[in-house]
């Protein structure tokens, strides 16, 4: 089984600052780490590999310095790291990123499962996982909290919802995004860290992944961030008063009206 984990280098959220004028995350002078949600994706891939055999490739798009997060992934036990890094990739929104990652996965070939973190801690969009699946024309399941069963052909998972969970089965290959309830990520070992230091990180540009120049980087990114805000949830509570039988009658009326 070949599992690809998409990981992103992000500014350490514990040191996060936002530029009030532009509404953008300030990236300068902040330590860069692996997107915390991606650690759960890496851990799940490593557990599947330990149980089923196979290999795990970590894939990232970013500046040359993003090779660090791939080395950290190798230190945890990942077999290979591939970095998508070129001037042409810069300025990508989630649409361009999904396309670019998908092209790289095409090139990797023979991929059974793609695991992403639930979302990136800097952009918080949670769009790249599903976007990747759309580009590859394969199914996706977001918010996976448990992998119940996996074979070469299919996957059964539990997916976290607002009210509980859904049990879903899909055919492979597929994309899943995982939530932090799924596992507890391991720390690297010394042997892994030493291997990671020497490991060769493959760097691919637009040619290597046969990318359409108009769909990558700034050129392939139509998104304009207007404003970021947390949507309000409109839920209104109503207290029914009166004697118990009056309350029951009032409730009955309300339910009937629905």
């Amino acid at each position: 089984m070949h599992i690809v984990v998409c990981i992103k280098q992000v500014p350490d959220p514990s040191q996060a600052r936002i530029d009030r004028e532009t509404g953008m995350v300030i990236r300068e002078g902040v330590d860069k780490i692996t997107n915390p949600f991606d650690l759960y994706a890496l851990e799940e891939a490593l557990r599947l590999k330990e149980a089923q055999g196979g290999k795990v490739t970590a894939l990232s798009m970013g500046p040359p310095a993003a090779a660090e997060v791939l080395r950290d992934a190798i230190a945890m036990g990942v077999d290979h790291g591939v970095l998508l890094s070129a001037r042409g990739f810069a300025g990508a929104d989630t649409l361009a990123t999904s396309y670019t990652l998908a092209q790289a996965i095409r090139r990797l070939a023979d991929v059974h499962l793609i695991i992403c973190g639930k979302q990136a801690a800097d952009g918080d969009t949670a769009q790249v996982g599903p976007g990747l699946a759309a580009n590859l024309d394969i199914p996706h399941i977001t918010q996976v909290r448990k992998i119940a069963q996996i074979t070469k052909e299919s996957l059964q998972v539990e997916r976290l919802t607002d009210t509980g969970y859904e049990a879903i089965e899909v055919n492979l290959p597929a994309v899943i995004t995982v939530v932090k309830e799924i596992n507890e990520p391991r720390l690297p070992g010394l042997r892994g860290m030493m291997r990671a230091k020497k490991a060769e990180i493959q760097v691919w540009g637009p040619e290597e992944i046969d990318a359409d120049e108009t769909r990558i980087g700034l050129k392939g990114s139509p998104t304009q961030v207007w404003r970021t805000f947390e949507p309000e949830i409109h839920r209104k509570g109503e207290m029914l008063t009166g004697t118990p039988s009056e309350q029951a009658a009032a409730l009955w009326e309300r339910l009937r009206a629905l």
Partner: protein
Amino acid sequence: MDYFLTEEQQMIKELAARIADEKIKPVAAELDEKEEFPWELMEVLAESDLFAVWVPEEYGGLGGGVFEQALVVEELSRACSGVAVSYAASGLGSFPILMFGSEAQKQQYMPDIANGKRLAAFALTEAGAGSDVSGITTTATLDGDEYVLNGTKQWITNGGEADIYTVIAVTDKTKGARGASAFIVEKGTPGLSFGKKEKKLGIRASSTTEVIFENCRIPKENRLGREGMGFIIAMKTFDKTRPGIGAQAVGIAQGALDEAVQYARQRVQFDQPISSFQGIQFMLADMATQVEAARALVYSVARLVDSGARDVSKAAAMAKLFASDVCMKVTVDAVQILGGYGYMREYPVEKMMRDAKITQIYEGTNQIQRSIIALELIKEAARKSK
């Protein structure tokens, strides 16, 4: 301070620090309260390959030595020295095998110790034999192809939890200092059992028990080195491990200093942070200076021991003595700086003060360390005046 660590040593230190901060600190108080052996944390240390740092590569290790182990022990001790000593005792139990074991013994035991699958322990002390190790009465009698062990060891760190015990026992009472030998005894051997877990002042996460031998038969091949070398093996082992106790002391002291500095910046009395009072500042300055001096000595001695130098007993004793005395003083002062809050279990420094005390006692009390140092001084002087 920059101690010019190699890239690999830096990596070891950083990983140990990360485990200390992320995995150990959050549970240290609970482990202390419950006096529970930290198996989960031992597994974390094993998975991170930290048990491999002092083991040569040919026996499944990463090829470091006393210094690398000291770096780990120091970092772990910052968070909880009960956890750190459980880790370090595996080194204490394994150095006799590394130094005096046959090729076959090393091949048999060291890989499992290096990958953390099995813990080791070292059993010398008995009820009547503490500082005076020559007072041990546990016997090992050769019977055909087997030694038969009888007697009770006391206060053995990792007792009951470890799988591999290095045991010093009397093989020939008439030979005095040359009458003891060292043996490897595996848990599960019939006739080997463990007493109850001791209730202690500090390092309460660690296990300290009696190790009891009742007609415990082990193959002759389990003897380490020649017959009669038992006490020499013990002393050479302590030369390797006393810098580690020094590192434990430095770690505890650093942890206490860090807490004291943080607290002094936040605690306001007389409308100002207590860190603005010179009385507090001078205490902090002395604490920091002492901790750094202890660290410098421990690191130098650990490197000296690893260099293969002969006659390191004096230096090893100094590292253990100085660092543990500093540790005691610094932790007492840390409690003082935190005042009443420092005395409460909600804050970590009272535990550090309790944990500090053992570093002045085990692997030879500090009186014994001073005796070792003084005797060496006198011997050296006598040699020179000849």
